[in-house]
């Protein structure tokens, strides 16, 4: 490891551990402090995460090869992954548990993004949470039985210590070098979100929402654990990277499952010829090859792909790749290096392989974890309820930490996903983005609109990853993190400004009162909608970040549809939803900031937030505009491509050749071809959505209330969130209640009955036992005592105290002894 690389590791370790230090100091210091009026905890938290940002940013500057990034060359030289082990937790036979790190440009980028956004949110929270800086905080949402409100000491320090722990967990997740470590930090992120969503724990709605978030995530984590078990049993390692155990090289997960060059369209012909080959050539005896023919094929391919691989980078022309499977698609062979050399078992001399279906189970299992964490269909119901937490928490959860974790893992784990799993990911993302966007149209709570838009955008990311646009999905993750945290903080500013009023129908015209908030929010709205001026000025389009990233996803899905006509929905649904996105986001902005004030009381009391809250907004809006500058050829996209899995570049084909699972992942070239076209489609959709929103809510050509009346059925359906909560109520909660009632009945009737009968019998036996004790045992003991007493009593009369009598006794005793002696022994 070079000095530069070890410096990067040190910097990231510092950035990772600083929030943990902050957490420890804040939580104990805050607990022991006498007054709750100190801002020290917050300053500590800001300092830790701020230093973390500085460290991450410098690591980013150090770690990447700028010439490869900014030049026209291939992006794979941007950065070589750095991997290693911090600390060995334990070795249990072949099971090695360790704290590893795996650093590539994605890791560096995520570190910088998370710490930057977290810093802004921490600073914002300094202002937002300032009403907790008191020894007697009144919670107006909690009504006590005596009619008053709930009083408690302020929890300023607690908020910031949890925020620090949250950042630590997320950074640990991003840095993790094995899937088990990811799982550990995954759960830490979950518990932190639980603590923060339930921050106002006395409010019933908040504690319920925290429980809901935690329990729904458990459902996904169940799948994650199944995935972990499959990975462990079939691969024997959790680590991503190649490493050594006792100086013996062990390939990491990504190497084991590395792709081989796909057989081209003449698949069948080649097969025949190789089969014929097989007959001619005698295979060496003694080797057991269930798929001997395929083995031969593999050697051939390995020889071919090696020089071809070198060419690929040089000529900028990549090959289509696929998993290394046997003919029947039943097993996947594991590799020991990236050139497709298969692992041979030294004992049985067979090639190591895992069943194909197990690979799918592992992928879907791990993705189930992502579904829970990133609030994808069908586990999306927890995220809107998570709005019960303080707004900075929502901003952090929705942009940089919690939900980003799921998408990040889907991206990090991408090499392990079989094409079938990717198709599942794409469809889940597609359903999610449509469902959430439609609900967002009718939501009236400003934070809930943003929550549903987050779910929808997460669906876009998953879709992007699922259709082979790996970099596009993660590109959207980064850009979305900036504009969504911006919008959440802006909504937080509105909520504080309106004295904790969250209902949009009561707002309106607020831009006059809070111009900074209104215009930074507008930046976020334009960014998320993907509006742009689609003409090149100075060689670049005038567009905010969201345009570039959403464009990339739509382009990927268009290319995917072109390659797989049967999956046309994966293109049209996101395209329509792009219009819906623009509609509901502009609806939010017009509702809140434009038009005439609807509630005079709210409007009169509204005021702009202090600088400590508006400066983070301005910083974030700067990044929301410029972070993706250059789009597909810009530095951010280049950075992401630097850690793109190898087989993404040239596209991949599934191993099935017919049927619904015959999937061709579009190559980058194919995506690039349709990029302009897709950009226009997306832009048209977005503009029409925005215009529609302007007509309805900006200048009110049609009264939205009329539409609501005419489509009351649809409206109610959407307001009730597609009835998912009702559905789960009927599907899971009711049956659980019924089963619980059965169990109670069984418990009451049989278990309790048995126990009661047993206890009654025990009482009977002990009563009888007591009688026996009292009469027999006690009687015996008492009788002995009485006898001893009586005999003592009677012997008392012997002791008269008269000396003469005693002398007489002695004399008579002696005489008696003599007489006895003479009688017993005469003569």
């Amino acid at each position: 490891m070079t000095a530069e690389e070890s410096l990067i590791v040190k910097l990231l370790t510092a950035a990772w551990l600083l929030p943990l230090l902050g957490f420890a100091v804040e939580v104990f210091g805050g607990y022991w402090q006498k007054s709750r009026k100190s801002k020290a905890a917050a300053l500590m938290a800001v300092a830790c995460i701020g230093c973390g940002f500085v460290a991450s940013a410098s690591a980013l500057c150090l770690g990447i090869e700028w010439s490869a990034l900014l030049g026209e060359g291939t992006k794979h030289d941007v950065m070589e992954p750095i991997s290693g082990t911090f600390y060995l937790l334990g070795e249990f036979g072949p099971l090695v548990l360790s704290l590893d790190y795996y650093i590539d440009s994605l890791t560096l980028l995520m570190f910088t993004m998370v710490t930057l956004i977290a810093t802004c949110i921490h600073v914002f929270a300094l202002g937002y949470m300032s009403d907790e800086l008191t020894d007697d905080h009144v919670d107006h949402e909690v009504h006590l039985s005596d009619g008053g409100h709930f009083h408690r000491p302020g929890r300023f320090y607690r908020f910031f210590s949890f925020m620090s722990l949250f950042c630590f967990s997320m950074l640990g997740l991003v840095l993790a070098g094995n899937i088990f470590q990811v799982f550990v930090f995954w759960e830490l992120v979950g518990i932190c979100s639980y603590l923060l969503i339930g921050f106002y724990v006395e409010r019933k709605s908040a504690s319920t929402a925290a429980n809901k978030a935690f329990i729904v995530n458990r459902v996904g984590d169940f799948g994650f654990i199944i995935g972990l078990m499959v990975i462990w049993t079939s691969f024997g390692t959790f680590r991503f990277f190649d490493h050594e155990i006792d100086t013996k090289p062990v390939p990491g997960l990504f190497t084991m499952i590395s792709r081989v060059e796909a057989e081209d369209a003449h698949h069948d012909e080649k097969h025949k010829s190789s089969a014929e080959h097989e007959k001619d050539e005698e295979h060496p005896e003694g080797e057991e090859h269930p798929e001997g023919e395929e083995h031969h094929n593999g050697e051939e391919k390995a020889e071919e792909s090696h020089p071809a691989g070198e060419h690929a980078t040089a000529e900028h022309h990549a090959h289509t790749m696929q998993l290394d499977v046997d003919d029947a698609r039943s097993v996947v062979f594991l590799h020991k290096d990236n050139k497709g050399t298969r692992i041979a078992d030294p004992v049985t001399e067979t090639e190591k392989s895992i069943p194909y279906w197990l690979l799918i189970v592992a992928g879907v299992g791990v993705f189930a974890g992502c579904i829970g964490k990133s609030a994808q269909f069908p586990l999306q119901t927890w995220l809107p309820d998570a709005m019960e937490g303080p707004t900075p928490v929502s901003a952090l959860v929705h942009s940089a930490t919690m939900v980003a974790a799921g998408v990040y893992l889907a991206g990090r784990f991408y090499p392990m996903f079989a094409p079938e799993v990717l198709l599942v990911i794409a469809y889940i993302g597609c359903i999610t983005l449509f469902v959430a966007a439609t609900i967002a149209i009718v939501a009236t709570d400003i934070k809930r609109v943003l929550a549903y838009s987050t779910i929808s955008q997460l669906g876009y990311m998953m879709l992007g990853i699922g259709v082979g646009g790996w970099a596009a999905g993660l590109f959207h993750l980064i850009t979305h993190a900036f504009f969504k945290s911006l919008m959440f903080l802006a909504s937080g500013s509105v909520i504080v400004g309106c004295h904790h009023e969250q209902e949009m129908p009561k707002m309106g015209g607020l831009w006059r009162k809070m111009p900074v908030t209104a215009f930074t929010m507008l930046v976020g709205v334009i960014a998320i909608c993907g509006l742009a001026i689609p003409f090149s000025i100075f060689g670049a389009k005038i567009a905010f970040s969201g345009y570039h990233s959403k464009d990339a996803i739509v382009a990927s899905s268009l290319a995917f549809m072109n390659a797989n006509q049967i999956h046309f929905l994966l293109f049209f649904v996101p395209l329509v939803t792009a219009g819906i996105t623009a509609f509901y986001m502009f609806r939010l902005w017009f509702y809140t900031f434009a038009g005439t004030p609807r509630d005079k009381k709210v409007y009169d009391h509204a005021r702009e937030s202090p600088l400590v809250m508006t400066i983070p907004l301005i910083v974030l809006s700067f990044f929301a505009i410029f972070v993706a500058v250059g789009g597909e050829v810009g530095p951010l996209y280049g950075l992401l491509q630097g850690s793109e899995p190898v087989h993404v570049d040239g596209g991949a084909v599934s191993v099935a050749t017919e049927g619904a699972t015959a999937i061709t992942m579009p190559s980058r070239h194919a995506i690039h071809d349709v990029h302009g076209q897709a950009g226009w489609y997306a832009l048209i959709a977005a503009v029409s959505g925005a215009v529609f929103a302007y007509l309805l809510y900006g200048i009110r050509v049609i009264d939205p209330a009329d539409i609501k009346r005419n489509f009351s059925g649809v409206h109610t359906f959407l307001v009730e969130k597609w009835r998912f909560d009702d559905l789960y109520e009927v599907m899971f909660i009711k049956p659980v209640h019924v089963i619980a009632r059965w169990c109670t009945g069984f418990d009451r009737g049989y278990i309790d009955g048995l126990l009661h009968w047993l206890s009654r019998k025990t009482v009977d036996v002990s009563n009888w036992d007591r009688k026996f004790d009292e009469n027999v045992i006690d009687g015996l003991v008492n009788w002995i005592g009485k006898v001893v007493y009586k005999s003592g009593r009677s012997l008392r009369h012997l002791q008269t105290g008269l000396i003469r009598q005693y002398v007489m006794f002695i004399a008579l005793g002696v005489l008696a002894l003599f007489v006895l002696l003479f009688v017993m022994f005469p003569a």
Partner: protein
Amino acid sequence: MDIGLNHYLVVGAVLFVCGIICMATKRNAIGILMGVELVLNGANINFVAFSRYTALGLDGQIVSLFVIVLAAAEAAVALAIALNFYNNHLTIDVDRGDELAG
């Protein structure tokens, strides 16, 4: 007349019986003490006689010397008790010492 072992034993028995009678009839503590001395000396005569006429040898005489020493010690203790008894009861009638009788 030839004086033999039996004569000595008779003298010892007479002394012993005298001592017993003395102890059994006196109420005066000093009288009882004197009876005890007679009993002890009766035993002494027996020891000395047996040492003279049997295989007991000098052992009998040694034992009788022990008895004399013990009798002296006993007399000292008993007289001290008698003095104390007198101090408390203004009499040495042993039948009056009945405070501990139940």
